[in-house]
């Protein structure tokens, strides 16, 4: 059933692809030796602090900076009165308006908590003190705090997210069994442990930016375009990043402010967002709501799904959190209709947060499926298996691999689902009600071209060089494993250099697209480097392997030899020495042959070349099924998640140890989403009230039970060169509905709006 065979750590195979190698950079992280963005020693630093708006909409009329400028240590105050002389940079797709000015500290206020001024001082403490002395006069305008305000209206339909086939309305009307529900999710936030911030330093017209980044090349491009300098003049450094979850993929206004200040002052500047500023300086997951109507036969065969969803966006950009994205592909459905709207409100533009789209979408459809199961009096597991999709009904394409059936059945087996008693409130332990629920999840396979360099050094070490990011997913480790496997050497003979915009370009560490994409490039480069070495070893007259008469060589156990023990065997360093070579360097990418320099630049710095899940012959996705047990105090309505078993189809796993960690991490974020996380907005002024880690609750250690994760995947070589599908995003998808369904089973109360807090149960 599983490719995750238990193996004692320390076996030689741990260091090859698929092995359970411990984290490559582990020692650095446990000793404090891993250097994050704000930790580089830079001489002569000045410190910048942002000042944010306290109204949700309107105009900055006047900024009184007199007192701040007179405060000790203050070097500069920036306000909307300062023309920073910047130009708007490209969007994700690489599209850019011509010569449009960019105002990172705008006069127009579009949300509460928007950065509108900055103070730079000799020390952070001085900057903070001076920032408090800035006095801003506003001209207020009417605002819309959330999409639940009457003034918000219905929003606008996103045509590209409208989909349908068959005749959903007619099939629904004709269906003997129907259910309808409205499901909603609140604003949610990334809350990466490392706050956003950067240190920036100019040398003439060259800039070095130490900033946490999920995409070194994409962010470097923004700096070059803002400041009108060649891309090559930007050096963005991000070898370690303290969590991103979607929030660190793009350069943001505070980066532009810090870089401008550094250039104007002629000295390096460090700018760290305070924790509260991290809640409004960039967007989290948008609040969503959706109605789902399902029609089915009396024996539980789906006849129609009608879905209508909406999500909040800002007043200045459309960011849809796609509530209808999991809905069409989880089940066999002949009649389907879905529409999604965005509703502009006075918020910072929302952004991608783990499992974007699929996550709230799965909360809707997976809650609705269990509502249908209870209406039919049918086991929710049976209902899901009965409506198993044999192909992708949306694209009409066959699945590449889809082991969701195995995820459901093997997950159920491990969980003990067969011992379930169907009726709500029928399982208890004294005054504690016990409930079980299922939630399925999915996330598309996204592929992006990438490039990697392999260097074989004279000392026998092998270097893997890439601009790719490791934010904890395990990029360092799996790249080292790939090179170790190709050269038949232990992992500790490999060095990995990552997180730098001057290194070869890479897919973003986001959308679960990095591992599959970059391993393709690393494997290609490493294989090419090995082939080059084989060619030299068999043909160079100085090579001791030349006379073996072999036409290839084996790389195993750290030694290189002709097959079948013909002749000598050498280590990499011995062979390099014999060949008289200090270095063999090979660069390869996964673009089509003959890609121009411009096409390469576009590939590394924009999403223009990214491939979606149905752009080829197949429909390619990761899949999972979560089984949750909750214990609910009957008197107080407190919910504890007591057990979770989750089964995943993510194809081949490059390193099960690290994959299990990522899956559990996604599931734990899902526990937070189900029970704790909710951005609260003051209707009067659009302020995010709980903008800190004590009031915006994320799961603590004591909130989390042991989580059992199971792999049911098989290699999918359509999805990636080495057979893996995405791992990071899918873990959270389906967790919240599994818990909501378990809460219903325990209590008989269906909570359709997250999070499930105790007042909704008593």
């Amino acid at each position, binding site marked *: 059933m599983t490719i995750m065979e238990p193996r004692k750590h320390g076996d030689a195979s741990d260091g090859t692809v698929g092995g359970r190698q*411990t*984290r490559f950079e*582990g*020692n650095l*992280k*446990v*000793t*404090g*030796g*891993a*250097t*994050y963005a*704000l*930790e580089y*020693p830079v001489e002569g630093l000045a410190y910048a602090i942002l000042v944010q708006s306290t109204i949700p909409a309107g105009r900055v009329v006047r900024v009184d900076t007199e007192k701040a400028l007179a405060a*000790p*240590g203050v070097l500069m105050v920036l306000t909307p009165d300062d023309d920073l002389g910047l130009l708007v940079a490209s969007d994700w797709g690489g599209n850019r308006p011509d010569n449009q000015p960019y105002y990172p500290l705008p006069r127009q206020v579009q949300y509460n908590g928007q950065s509108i001024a900055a103070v730079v001082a000799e020390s*952070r*403490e*001085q900057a903070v*003190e001076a920032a408090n002395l800035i006095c801003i006069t506003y001209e207020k305008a009417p605002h819309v705090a959330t999409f639940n305000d009457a003034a918000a209206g219905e929003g606008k339909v996103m045509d590209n997210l409208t989909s349908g086939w068959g005749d959903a309305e007619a099939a629904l009307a004709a269906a003997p069994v129907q259910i309808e529900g409205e499901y909603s999710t609140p604003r949610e936030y990334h809350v*990466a*442990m*490392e*706050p956003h911030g950067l240190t920036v330093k100019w040398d003439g017209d060259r800039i070095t930016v130490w900033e946490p980044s999920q995409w070194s090349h994409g962010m470097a491009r923004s700096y070059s375009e803002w400041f009108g300098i060649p891309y090559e003049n930007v050096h963005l450094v991000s070898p*370690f*990043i*303290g*969590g*991103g*979850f979607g929030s660190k993929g793009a350069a943001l206004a505070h980066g532009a402010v810090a870089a401008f200040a550094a250039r104007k002052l002629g000295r390096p500047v460090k700018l*760290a967002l*305070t*924790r509260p500023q991290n809640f409004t300086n960039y967007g989290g997951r948008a609040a969503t709501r959706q109605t789902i109507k399902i029609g089915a036969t009396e024996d539980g065969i789906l006849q129609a799904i009608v879905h209508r969803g909406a999500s909040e966006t800002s007043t200045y950009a459309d960011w849809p959190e796609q509530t209808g994205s999991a809905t069409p592909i989880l089940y066999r459905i002949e009649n389907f209709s879905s529409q999604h709207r965005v509703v502009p409100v006075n918020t910072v533009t929302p952004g991608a947060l783990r499992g974007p789209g699929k996550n709230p979408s799965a909360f809707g459809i997976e809650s609705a499926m269990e509502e249908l199961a209870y209406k039919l009096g049918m086991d929710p597991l049976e209902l899901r298996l009965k409506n198993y999709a044999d192909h992708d009904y949306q694209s009409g394409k066959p699945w590449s691999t889809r082991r969701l059936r195995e995820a459901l059945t093997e997950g159920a087996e491990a969980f003990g689902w067969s011992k379930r008693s169907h009726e709500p409130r029928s399982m208890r332990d004294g005054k504690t009600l016990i409930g079980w629920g299922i939630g399925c999840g999915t996330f598309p396979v996204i592929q992006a071209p990438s490039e990697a360099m392999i260097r074989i050094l004279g000392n026998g070490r092998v270097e893997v060089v890439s601009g790719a990011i490791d934010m*904890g*997913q*395990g990029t360092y480790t799996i790249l080292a494993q790939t090179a170790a496997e190709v050269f038949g050497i232990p992992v500790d003979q490999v060095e990995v250099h990552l997180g730098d915009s001057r290194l070869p370009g890479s897919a973003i560490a986001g959308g679960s697209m990095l591992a599959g994409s970059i391993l393709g490039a690393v494997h290609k480069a490493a294989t090419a480097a090995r082939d080059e070495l084989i060619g030299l070893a068999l043909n160079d007259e100085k090579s001791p392997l030349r006379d073996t008469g072999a036409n290839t060589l084996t790389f195993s156990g750290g030694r290189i030899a002709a097959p079948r023990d013909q002749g000598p065997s050498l280590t990499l360093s011995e062979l390099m020495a014999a060949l008289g070579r200090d270095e063999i360097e090979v660069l390869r990418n996964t673009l089509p042959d003959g890609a121009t320099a411009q096409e390469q630049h576009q590939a590394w710095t924009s999403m223009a070349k990214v491939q979606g899940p149905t752009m080829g012959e197949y429909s390619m996705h990761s899949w999972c099924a979560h089984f949750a047990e909750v214990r609910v105090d009957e008197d107080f309505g407190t919910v504890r998640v007591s057990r979770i078993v989750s089964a995943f189809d993510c194809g081949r796993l490059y390193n099960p*140890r*690290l994959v*299990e*960690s*990522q899956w*559990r*991490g*996604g*599931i*734990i*974020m899902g526990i937070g989403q189900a029970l704790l996380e909710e951005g609260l907005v003051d209707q009067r002024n659009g302020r995010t009230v709980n903008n*800190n*880690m*004590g009031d915006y609750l*994320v*799961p*603590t*250690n*004591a*909130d*989390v039970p*042991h*989580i059992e994760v199971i792999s049911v995947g098989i290699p999918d070589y359509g999805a990636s060169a080495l057979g893996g599908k995405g791992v990071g995003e899918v873990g959270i998808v389906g967790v919240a509905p599994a818990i909501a369904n378990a809460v219903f089973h325990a209590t008989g109360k269906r909570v359709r709006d997250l999070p499930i807090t105790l007042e909704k149960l008593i």
Partner: protein
Amino acid sequence: MTRTIHLSLDINGRRYDLDVEPRVTLLDALREHLALTGTKKGCDQGQCGACTCHVDGSRVLSCLTLAAQVEGRQITTIEGIAAENGELHPVQAAFVEHDAFQCGYCTPGQIMSAVACIREGHAGSDEEIREYMSGNLCRCGAYNSIVAAVREAAEMA
């Protein structure tokens, strides 16, 4: 405020002299003035635990502690718990073995908390470890592995 005070701090058994404003926190003194950046700033509000250090052997939040308060006391940071020869502290080794972190940013605080948690005698069961390690948030969600690592290190202690 421009006045600075002279401090002499005992950190990881070494003496560090520095001139800072009296309002500088221990966390900022470590990170901005002494290049001891292993101690992390996650919230600067005492909510996340990433800045956990030991003062006279007890865990403290260095973001809520003024540097001036700890003069004459023994401060231990993540840089100070491995052996002189570089051999990892058992808690550090257990964190690597159990993959008790992903991004690594909360990790120094988790480890400093774990060392103290074991020393306090609060690592007797998984429930107890979960409770006494709950002042240290981990957004990557490594909690299962953190519990396993602390349990293993406690058993070896």
